[in-house]
Protein backbone atom coordinates (compact mmCIF):
# COMPACT_ATOMS: atom_id res chain seq x y z
CA UNK A 1 0.00 0.00 0.00
CA UNK A 2 1.28 3.41 -0.90
CA UNK A 3 1.88 6.06 1.70
CA UNK A 4 1.19 9.74 1.25
CA UNK A 5 4.32 11.74 0.44
CA UNK A 6 4.58 15.51 0.08
CA UNK A 7 7.62 16.76 -1.80
CA UNK A 8 8.11 20.52 -1.64
CA UNK A 9 10.66 22.35 -3.68
CA UNK A 10 10.59 25.69 -5.46
CA UNK A 11 9.03 25.47 -8.92
CA UNK A 12 11.86 27.44 -10.48
CA UNK A 13 15.45 28.24 -9.56
CA UNK A 14 18.34 30.21 -11.04
CA UNK A 15 21.38 28.23 -12.29
CA UNK A 16 23.72 27.49 -9.41
CA UNK A 17 21.15 28.36 -6.77
CA UNK A 18 20.93 26.13 -3.72
CA UNK A 19 17.33 25.08 -3.12
CA UNK A 20 15.84 23.25 -0.19
CA UNK A 21 13.90 20.06 -0.82
CA UNK A 22 11.42 19.05 1.88
CA UNK A 23 9.89 15.62 2.28
CA UNK A 24 6.96 14.81 4.52
CA UNK A 25 5.85 11.18 4.80
CA UNK A 26 2.65 9.87 6.31
CA UNK A 27 3.90 6.81 8.13
CA UNK A 28 3.26 5.38 11.63
CA UNK A 29 6.96 4.46 12.21
CA UNK A 30 5.91 1.65 14.54
CA UNK A 31 9.01 0.75 16.55
CA UNK A 32 8.40 -2.96 17.10
CA UNK A 33 8.86 -2.52 20.85
CA UNK A 34 5.44 -1.30 21.91
CA UNK A 35 2.69 -3.52 23.27
CA UNK A 36 -0.65 -3.16 21.55
CA UNK A 37 -4.10 -3.04 23.15
CA UNK A 38 -4.10 -6.85 23.42
CA UNK A 39 -0.75 -6.90 25.24
CA UNK A 40 1.17 -8.37 22.33
CA UNK A 41 4.06 -6.53 20.75
CA UNK A 42 3.07 -4.57 17.66
CA UNK A 43 5.34 -5.69 14.81
CA UNK A 44 7.86 -3.22 13.55
CA UNK A 45 6.69 -1.09 10.65
CA UNK A 46 9.10 1.67 9.72
CA UNK A 47 10.47 3.36 6.66
CA UNK A 48 13.96 1.89 6.24
CA UNK A 49 15.57 3.92 3.49
CA UNK A 50 14.98 7.03 1.47
CA UNK A 51 17.00 7.83 -1.62
CA UNK A 52 16.69 10.85 -3.86
CA UNK A 53 18.25 11.23 -7.28
CA UNK A 54 18.15 14.14 -9.67
CA UNK A 55 18.23 13.10 -13.30
CA UNK A 56 19.79 9.77 -12.32
CA UNK A 57 22.43 11.29 -10.02
CA UNK A 58 22.18 10.40 -6.32
CA UNK A 59 21.73 13.62 -4.31
CA UNK A 60 20.48 12.35 -0.96
CA UNK A 61 20.12 9.11 0.95
CA UNK A 62 19.05 8.34 4.50
CA UNK A 63 18.54 5.26 6.65
CA UNK A 64 15.64 5.57 9.07
CA UNK A 65 15.45 3.84 12.44
CA UNK A 66 12.70 3.17 14.99
CA UNK A 67 13.72 6.17 17.09
CA UNK A 68 12.32 8.49 14.42
CA UNK A 69 8.84 9.77 15.17
CA UNK A 70 5.76 9.08 13.09
CA UNK A 71 5.26 11.10 9.90
CA UNK A 72 8.96 11.80 9.30
CA UNK A 73 10.05 15.14 7.90
CA UNK A 74 13.35 15.34 6.01
CA UNK A 75 14.95 18.31 4.31
CA UNK A 76 18.09 18.55 2.23
CA UNK A 77 19.82 21.10 0.04
CA UNK A 78 20.29 20.70 -3.68
CA UNK A 79 22.33 22.82 -6.08
CA UNK A 80 20.22 23.49 -9.13
CA UNK A 81 22.32 23.33 -12.27
CA UNK A 82 19.77 22.24 -14.87
CA UNK A 83 16.08 21.49 -15.19
CA UNK A 84 15.05 17.97 -14.42
CA UNK A 85 13.12 15.51 -12.32
CA UNK A 86 13.83 14.67 -8.73
CA UNK A 87 12.96 11.04 -8.02
CA UNK A 88 12.52 9.93 -4.43
CA UNK A 89 12.38 6.24 -3.61
CA UNK A 90 11.09 5.05 -0.26
CA UNK A 91 11.58 1.55 1.09
CA UNK A 92 10.35 0.03 4.30
CA UNK A 93 8.64 -2.79 6.12
CA UNK A 94 5.51 -4.55 4.86
CA UNK A 95 6.85 -4.38 1.32
CA UNK A 96 6.89 -0.62 1.14
CA UNK A 97 8.61 0.37 -2.10
CA UNK A 98 7.44 3.61 -3.57
CA UNK A 99 8.71 6.17 -6.02
CA UNK A 100 7.65 9.82 -6.10
CA UNK A 101 8.82 12.53 -8.46
CA UNK A 102 8.90 16.30 -8.55
CA UNK A 103 10.00 18.65 -11.32
CA UNK A 104 12.51 21.47 -10.90
CA UNK A 105 12.84 24.07 -13.63
CA UNK A 106 16.09 26.05 -13.81
CA UNK A 107 15.83 29.31 -15.70
Amino acid sequence: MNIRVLIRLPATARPGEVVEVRLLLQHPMETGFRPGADGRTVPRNTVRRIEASFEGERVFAADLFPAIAANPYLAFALRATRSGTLAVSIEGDNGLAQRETAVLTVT
Partner: protein
Amino acid sequence: MTRARLAMAGLAGALALAAGAAGAAGFDTRRSGYEDMSPSTQALQRDDTQNPAMLWVSDGEQRFAADCLRCHSVASLRGVAARHPAWDAASAKPVTLAARINLCRTRHVKAPALAAESDGLLALEAYLALQSRGQPLAPDGTLALRPFRAQGERLFQQRFGQLEFSCAQCHDDNAGRRLAGAPIPQAHPTGYPIYRLEWQGMGSLQRRLRNCMSGVRAEPFAYGSDEFTAIELYLKQRAAGMVMESPAVRP
Protein backbone atom coordinates in the same frame (compact mmCIF):
# COMPACT_ATOMS: atom_id res chain seq x y z
CA MET B 1 -26.02 62.12 24.83
CA THR B 2 -24.87 63.14 21.39
CA ARG B 3 -25.19 60.90 18.41
CA ALA B 4 -21.40 60.39 18.30
CA ARG B 5 -21.28 59.30 21.92
CA LEU B 6 -24.20 56.96 21.35
CA ALA B 7 -22.33 55.41 18.44
CA MET B 8 -19.24 55.07 20.61
CA ALA B 9 -21.23 53.34 23.34
CA GLY B 10 -22.77 51.02 20.76
CA LEU B 11 -19.33 50.19 19.38
CA ALA B 12 -17.95 49.48 22.84
CA GLY B 13 -20.93 47.22 23.53
CA ALA B 14 -20.38 45.34 20.29
CA LEU B 15 -16.70 44.93 21.08
CA ALA B 16 -17.43 43.64 24.57
CA LEU B 17 -19.91 41.19 23.09
CA ALA B 18 -17.38 39.99 20.55
CA ALA B 19 -14.67 39.68 23.16
CA GLY B 20 -16.89 37.53 25.38
CA ALA B 21 -14.30 36.73 28.04
CA ALA B 22 -12.73 40.19 27.98
CA GLY B 23 -10.78 41.09 31.08
CA ALA B 24 -11.77 43.58 33.72
CA ALA B 25 -9.70 46.28 32.06
CA GLY B 26 -11.97 45.93 29.02
CA PHE B 27 -9.43 44.54 26.58
CA ASP B 28 -9.33 41.00 25.31
CA THR B 29 -7.12 38.83 27.52
CA ARG B 30 -7.81 35.65 25.62
CA ARG B 31 -4.84 33.96 24.00
CA SER B 32 -4.47 30.97 21.77
CA GLY B 33 -2.41 28.01 22.94
CA TYR B 34 -0.18 28.83 19.97
CA GLU B 35 1.37 31.72 21.89
CA ASP B 36 2.54 29.44 24.70
CA MET B 37 4.26 26.93 22.41
CA SER B 38 8.01 26.71 21.83
CA PRO B 39 9.29 28.66 18.80
CA SER B 40 10.12 25.42 16.99
CA THR B 41 6.59 24.06 17.39
CA GLN B 42 5.21 27.42 16.28
CA ALA B 43 7.40 27.25 13.18
CA LEU B 44 6.08 23.75 12.48
CA GLN B 45 2.53 25.10 12.47
CA ARG B 46 3.26 28.29 10.52
CA ASP B 47 5.01 26.60 7.63
CA ASP B 48 2.64 24.52 5.53
CA THR B 49 5.56 22.62 4.04
CA GLN B 50 6.53 21.40 7.52
CA ASN B 51 3.12 21.08 9.16
CA PRO B 52 2.38 17.32 9.29
CA ALA B 53 -1.36 18.08 9.32
CA MET B 54 -1.00 18.95 5.64
CA LEU B 55 -0.76 15.20 4.95
CA TRP B 56 -4.34 14.89 6.16
CA VAL B 57 -5.36 18.06 4.33
CA SER B 58 -4.16 16.69 1.02
CA ASP B 59 -6.04 13.45 1.71
CA GLY B 60 -9.12 15.53 2.54
CA GLU B 61 -8.76 17.48 -0.68
CA GLN B 62 -8.91 14.26 -2.70
CA ARG B 63 -11.88 12.94 -0.74
CA PHE B 64 -13.66 16.27 -1.14
CA ALA B 65 -13.09 16.25 -4.89
CA ALA B 66 -14.41 12.70 -5.12
CA ASP B 67 -17.55 12.99 -2.98
CA CYS B 68 -18.46 16.60 -2.22
CA LEU B 69 -17.69 18.72 -5.31
CA ARG B 70 -20.94 17.59 -6.95
CA CYS B 71 -22.86 19.87 -4.57
CA HIS B 72 -20.33 22.15 -2.83
CA SER B 73 -17.75 24.50 -4.24
CA VAL B 74 -14.59 25.02 -2.24
CA ALA B 75 -15.30 28.75 -2.02
CA SER B 76 -18.75 28.14 -0.51
CA LEU B 77 -17.16 26.35 2.42
CA ARG B 78 -15.20 29.32 3.71
CA GLY B 79 -16.26 30.00 7.27
CA VAL B 80 -18.19 26.75 7.70
CA ALA B 81 -15.71 25.38 10.23
CA ALA B 82 -15.73 28.74 12.05
CA ARG B 83 -19.51 28.49 12.50
CA HIS B 84 -19.90 24.87 13.68
CA PRO B 85 -21.34 23.33 15.83
CA ALA B 86 -24.46 24.62 14.13
CA TRP B 87 -28.20 23.96 14.25
CA ASP B 88 -29.49 21.14 12.11
CA ALA B 89 -33.17 21.73 11.42
CA ALA B 90 -33.84 18.21 10.13
CA SER B 91 -32.78 16.50 13.34
CA ALA B 92 -33.63 19.53 15.56
CA LYS B 93 -30.23 19.26 17.24
CA PRO B 94 -26.88 21.01 17.14
CA VAL B 95 -24.28 19.15 15.07
CA THR B 96 -20.51 19.39 15.13
CA LEU B 97 -18.50 19.69 11.93
CA ALA B 98 -17.64 15.98 12.06
CA ALA B 99 -21.30 15.08 12.55
CA ARG B 100 -22.26 17.42 9.69
CA ILE B 101 -19.81 15.69 7.35
CA ASN B 102 -21.30 12.32 8.25
CA LEU B 103 -24.88 13.60 7.93
CA CYS B 104 -23.99 14.91 4.48
CA ARG B 105 -22.51 11.54 3.58
CA THR B 106 -25.49 9.49 4.70
CA ARG B 107 -28.17 11.91 3.46
CA HIS B 108 -26.76 13.07 0.13
CA VAL B 109 -23.70 11.06 -0.89
CA LYS B 110 -25.50 7.85 0.20
CA ALA B 111 -22.22 6.62 1.62
CA PRO B 112 -21.68 5.06 5.04
CA ALA B 113 -20.72 7.41 7.86
CA LEU B 114 -17.02 7.60 8.63
CA ALA B 115 -15.92 6.31 12.04
CA ALA B 116 -15.09 8.88 14.72
CA GLU B 117 -11.38 9.81 14.67
CA SER B 118 -10.81 7.80 11.49
CA ASP B 119 -8.21 9.21 9.13
CA GLY B 120 -10.87 9.83 6.49
CA LEU B 121 -13.08 11.93 8.77
CA LEU B 122 -10.14 13.86 10.20
CA ALA B 123 -8.87 14.48 6.67
CA LEU B 124 -12.19 16.00 5.56
CA GLU B 125 -12.45 17.99 8.78
CA ALA B 126 -8.91 19.31 8.37
CA TYR B 127 -9.55 20.26 4.75
CA LEU B 128 -12.75 22.11 5.68
CA ALA B 129 -11.12 23.79 8.67
CA LEU B 130 -8.30 24.99 6.45
CA GLN B 131 -10.88 26.87 4.35
CA SER B 132 -11.68 28.95 7.45
CA ARG B 133 -8.10 29.61 8.48
CA GLY B 134 -7.56 33.26 9.28
CA GLN B 135 -11.26 33.91 9.84
CA PRO B 136 -12.70 34.80 13.25
CA LEU B 137 -14.66 32.10 15.05
CA ALA B 138 -18.28 33.05 14.39
CA PRO B 139 -20.65 30.76 16.32
CA ASP B 140 -24.08 30.01 14.91
CA GLY B 141 -26.54 32.52 16.36
CA THR B 142 -29.64 30.33 16.09
CA LEU B 143 -31.77 30.90 19.19
CA ALA B 144 -32.57 27.21 19.56
CA LEU B 145 -28.90 26.62 20.36
CA ARG B 146 -29.12 28.57 23.62
CA PRO B 147 -30.14 25.74 25.95
CA PHE B 148 -27.44 23.49 24.48
CA ARG B 149 -24.81 26.17 24.95
CA ALA B 150 -25.98 26.66 28.53
CA GLN B 151 -25.67 22.92 29.08
CA GLY B 152 -22.12 23.12 27.71
CA GLU B 153 -21.30 25.89 30.15
CA ARG B 154 -22.70 23.84 33.03
CA LEU B 155 -20.57 20.87 31.99
CA PHE B 156 -17.54 23.17 31.78
CA GLN B 157 -18.16 24.24 35.40
CA GLN B 158 -19.01 20.76 36.67
CA ARG B 159 -16.50 18.73 38.66
CA PHE B 160 -15.62 15.36 37.14
CA GLY B 161 -13.83 12.17 38.07
CA GLN B 162 -11.85 10.93 41.02
CA LEU B 163 -9.79 14.12 41.14
CA GLU B 164 -12.98 16.21 41.09
CA PHE B 165 -11.78 18.90 38.76
CA SER B 166 -13.93 20.95 36.46
CA CYS B 167 -12.68 22.34 33.14
CA ALA B 168 -13.07 25.85 34.54
CA GLN B 169 -10.82 25.23 37.55
CA CYS B 170 -7.82 24.79 35.28
CA HIS B 171 -8.70 26.68 32.13
CA ASP B 172 -10.46 29.71 33.67
CA ASP B 173 -9.04 29.98 37.18
CA ASN B 174 -5.47 28.78 36.63
CA ALA B 175 -4.80 29.35 32.95
CA GLY B 176 -1.31 30.67 32.33
CA ARG B 177 0.09 28.79 35.32
CA ARG B 178 1.76 25.42 35.08
CA LEU B 179 0.58 21.90 35.70
CA ALA B 180 3.59 19.61 36.22
CA GLY B 181 5.75 21.81 34.03
CA ALA B 182 3.30 22.14 31.18
CA PRO B 183 1.60 25.51 30.70
CA ILE B 184 -2.16 25.45 31.25
CA PRO B 185 -3.78 27.01 28.17
CA GLN B 186 -7.03 28.94 28.20
CA ALA B 187 -8.55 26.13 26.13
CA HIS B 188 -9.76 28.05 23.10
CA PRO B 189 -10.52 25.65 20.24
CA THR B 190 -9.00 27.77 17.48
CA GLY B 191 -6.95 25.15 15.67
CA TYR B 192 -8.90 21.89 15.55
CA PRO B 193 -8.44 19.34 14.18
CA ILE B 194 -4.86 19.46 15.44
CA TYR B 195 -1.70 17.52 14.80
CA ARG B 196 -0.52 16.78 18.32
CA LEU B 197 3.11 15.79 18.70
CA GLU B 198 2.25 13.67 21.73
CA TRP B 199 -0.22 11.67 19.65
CA GLN B 200 2.09 11.59 16.65
CA GLY B 201 -1.08 12.05 14.69
CA MET B 202 -4.18 14.04 14.03
CA GLY B 203 -7.05 14.37 16.45
CA SER B 204 -10.31 16.23 16.97
CA LEU B 205 -11.40 18.53 19.78
CA GLN B 206 -13.33 15.61 21.27
CA ARG B 207 -10.20 13.50 21.44
CA ARG B 208 -8.52 16.35 23.30
CA LEU B 209 -11.49 16.64 25.66
CA ARG B 210 -11.39 12.91 26.32
CA ASN B 211 -7.68 13.27 27.18
CA CYS B 212 -8.51 15.91 29.78
CA MET B 213 -11.34 13.79 31.19
CA SER B 214 -9.17 10.71 31.63
CA GLY B 215 -6.55 13.07 33.12
CA VAL B 216 -8.92 13.87 35.97
CA ARG B 217 -9.82 10.18 36.10
CA ALA B 218 -13.34 10.60 34.85
CA GLU B 219 -15.05 8.30 32.42
CA PRO B 220 -14.92 10.23 29.14
CA PHE B 221 -18.08 10.93 27.17
CA ALA B 222 -18.41 8.98 23.93
CA TYR B 223 -17.35 10.46 20.60
CA GLY B 224 -20.26 12.34 19.09
CA SER B 225 -22.23 12.40 22.35
CA ASP B 226 -24.64 15.24 23.06
CA GLU B 227 -22.46 16.29 26.01
CA PHE B 228 -19.44 16.85 23.78
CA THR B 229 -21.54 18.75 21.25
CA ALA B 230 -22.75 21.01 24.07
CA ILE B 231 -19.22 21.57 25.37
CA GLU B 232 -18.00 22.35 21.84
CA LEU B 233 -20.84 24.86 21.44
CA TYR B 234 -19.85 26.60 24.65
CA LEU B 235 -16.12 26.58 23.89
CA LYS B 236 -16.66 28.06 20.43
CA GLN B 237 -18.82 30.79 21.97
CA ARG B 238 -16.16 31.43 24.60
CA ALA B 239 -13.57 31.83 21.82
CA ALA B 240 -15.87 33.81 19.49
CA GLY B 241 -13.93 36.33 17.42
CA MET B 242 -10.59 34.62 17.88
CA VAL B 243 -8.80 33.78 14.66
CA MET B 244 -8.94 30.22 13.30
CA GLU B 245 -5.51 28.65 12.85
CA SER B 246 -6.54 25.18 11.70
CA PRO B 247 -4.90 22.81 11.13
CA ALA B 248 -2.77 23.64 14.17
CA VAL B 249 0.18 21.81 15.70
CA ARG B 250 0.27 21.32 19.46
CA PRO B 251 2.95 19.74 21.65
